């Protein structure tokens, strides 16, 4: 029996070696991956030696990206890093990809453990409102030169204000878009509902919307007209914009200091949606997330989706067998105010100035380099925040797709995602919808939401 025990011990030891060995091989495994050859953190010294033109020590930085277009694609980002290393061989960049389902948990964990990356790519609602407000991010004011500020303001002043908090810039933006909805063009055509939309401006009024729903239902074009999804971690912009636009309500006040989703306009909108659901013109699905709703749109179950943008269009291109036609949200005055999405980079304060400087160098290369900036924006599938870049899709094969969304860009409304308690309101918002569609009176549900959401504004 001693033999058995010895065997167990031996197993443990070999296992230890395997684990350590595994660690080594995984590190080297990283180098052999396409595109990462120049960017391995363990090979710093080698890199500098080969680089030749640089003096001093190499700096190793880490970047985590949320899946924003091709920034969720390892090969594409590594290609970008390789291009960066041609200019800056002294900085080695390690990439990790995040996803929206688990990314926040992972970043939260990293913050508590002090293992945050140097650079992170996402929007102001996380970079500024969450992590910037908690004092975890580096102030990027020196990147925001007057020239940059003017260039971005020329596109939309709200982008500039969204990236800062109390005079400090926690985000350096790269791209933006408007979140729209989309209709199944063929289904609308079959139901004779195209008369209710303005194909030129891609807008419709609240009345058009209701008429279109009736026409769709009478024709039985699709099993359901549209699904108001009330769950999930994201995609809340779709339902927010739907409610806010129907009677031109606002989500927060102009100063972004309080939520106003219980205003008479919003309550009227919620009540209308309740009626539409009760009449079978729309379906409310308390368990569905944006991805579930999009899937039902893509397979032809629903005639419209409330969660659409250039990235989703590309994502579902292979799955649809109809023409998804991007539309603004219906609005009583016919003038929609669309929610914006802004994405860019922020730097976690890890206390090492050399790494902060290296991170800034990287961000500037991605966002400002003459040859790279347009390509970086193209990677996202969205539109540049810098007016000077012009139409980055002109002459590319995706120009037509991009134009569809470019038409809707002028309807970009207030960027209110920087209101305090933003993460909390998302959960509360979905819960409010769940209540409103399970019998709770619209006013009560909205009041509860506003009360809880405002309580989180610090």
């Amino acid at each position, binding site marked *: 029996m001693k033999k058995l025990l010895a065997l167990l011990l031996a197993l443990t030891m070999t296992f230890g070696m*395997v684990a350590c060995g595994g660690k080594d091989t995984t590190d080297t495994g990283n180098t052999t991956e396409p595109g990462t050859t120049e960017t391995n953190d363990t090979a710093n010294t080698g890199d500098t030696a080969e680089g030749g033109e640089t003096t001093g020590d190499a700096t190793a930085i880490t970047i985590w990206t949320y899946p924003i277009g091709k920034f969720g694609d390892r090969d594409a980002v590594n290609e970008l890093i390789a291009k960066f290393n041609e200019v800056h061989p002294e900085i080695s960049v390690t990439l990790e990809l995040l996803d929206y389902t688990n990314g926040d948990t992972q970043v939260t964990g990293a913050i508590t453990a002090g293992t945050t990356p140097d650079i992170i790519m996402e929007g102001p609602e996380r970079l500024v409102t969450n992590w910037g407000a908690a004092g975890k991010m580096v102030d990027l004011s020196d990147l925001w030169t007057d020239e940059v500020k003017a260039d971005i303001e020329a596109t939309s002043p709200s982008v500039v204000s969204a990236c800062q908090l109390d005079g400090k810039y926690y985000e350096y933006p790269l791209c933006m878009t408007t979140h729209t909805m989309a209709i199944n063009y063929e289904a609308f055509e079959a139901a004779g509902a195209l008369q209710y939309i303005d194909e030129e401006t891609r807008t419709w009024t609240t009345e058009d919307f209701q008429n279109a729903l009736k026409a769709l239902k009478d024709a039985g074009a699709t099993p359901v007209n549209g699904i108001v999804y009330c769950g999930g971690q994201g995609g809340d912009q779709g339902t927010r914009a739907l409610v806010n636009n129907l009677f031109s309500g606002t989500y927060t006040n102009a100063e972004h200091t309080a939520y106003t989703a219980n205003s008479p306009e919003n309550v009227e909108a919620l009540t209308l949606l309740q009626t539409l659901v009760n009449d079978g013109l729309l379906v409310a699905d308390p368990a569905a997330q944006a*991805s579930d709703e999009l899937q039902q749109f893509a*397979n032809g179950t629903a005639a419209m989706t409330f969660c659409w943008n250039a990235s989703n269009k590309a994502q579902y291109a292979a799955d649809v067998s109809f023409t998804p036609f991007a539309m603004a949200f219906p609005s009583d005055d016919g003038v929609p105010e669309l929610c914006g999405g802004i994405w860019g980079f922020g730097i976690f304060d890890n206390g090492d100035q050399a790494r902060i400087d290296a991170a800034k160098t990287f961000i500037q290369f991605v966002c400002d380099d003459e040859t790279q900036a347009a390509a970086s924006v193209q990677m996202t599938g969205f539109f540049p925040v810098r007016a000077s870049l012009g139409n980055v899709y002109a002459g590319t094969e995706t120009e037509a797709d991009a134009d569809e969304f470019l038409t809707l860009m002028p309807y970009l409304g207030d960027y209110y995602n920087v209101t305090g308690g933003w993460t909390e309101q998302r959960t509360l918002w979905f819960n409010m919808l769940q209540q409103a569609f399970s019998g709770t009176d619209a006013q009560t549900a909205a009041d509860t939401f506003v009360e809880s959401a405002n309580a989180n504004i610090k």
Partner: protein
Amino acid sequence: MKTKNRLSDTPMSYRIFTIVVLILLAIFFIFPLYWIITGSFKDNKIIIAQDPQWFPLTPTLANYVKLFDRPALQWLLNIVVICVGAMVLTCLTASLAGYALAKKRFYGRAFLFGMITCAMALPKQVIVIPLLQEMSAIGLHDTLWAVILPTVGWPFGVFLMKQFSETIPGEILEAARVDGASEVRTFCSVVFPMIKPGIGALAIFTFVNTWNDYFMQLIMLNSEAKWTLPLGIARMQGEMSNDFGLIMAGATLAAVPIVAIFIAFQRYFTQGISMGAVKG
């Protein structure tokens, strides 16, 4: 003989009822796995289609191509290393500790047992934040050890092994002592053979539970090269789209080896395990 006797005791109708229910349940339990495996050979368009396809009529390997585009085999290796490591260490430490708790009277025994029971009740998701801080302080964060060590510390194994060790008759231990056997010798030649089936059960439970504990893996492992297969699958769910085919392919890759292990090893822990009396 006696088995036959007993069976013939049972009314025919009850036996048929049992068999029918068992078969129905088997279908119910097998079906999700069937759906996962067949789903992994379906095109995403077919998966999300309005009418479900009971069998992949146009099977495709595209999902697997996509899966192996990512370091899926590395992930598989990582999770196997984690599970085997946790399994071996847990079996080793828990069988020693369980034996001591069951068969030795010592100062602090009741306290220790109480603490173990309480610790089992503590949700992992709660202690994971301090645990993460600890791991990063000792430099193990983002290594496979960061998942293995807390799993080994989890006191389920000790509790289970204590239950098994209770069945060891005290007379045998006393006899070994009278013969002048050392403690180590007693454990190796008397205790160990008696609790071997229990260790088998503990091994498979530790393996499977560690495999499924993707939350711990999510928090502890950051680099894609350190990910595990269950974590990789969990992270295939998007905010705006779910690539079901890819998830199913990953799940198939994960399920097949573990089902094979279960089938291969089940005979080791199903013979003659029993738990001892209830003590606290």
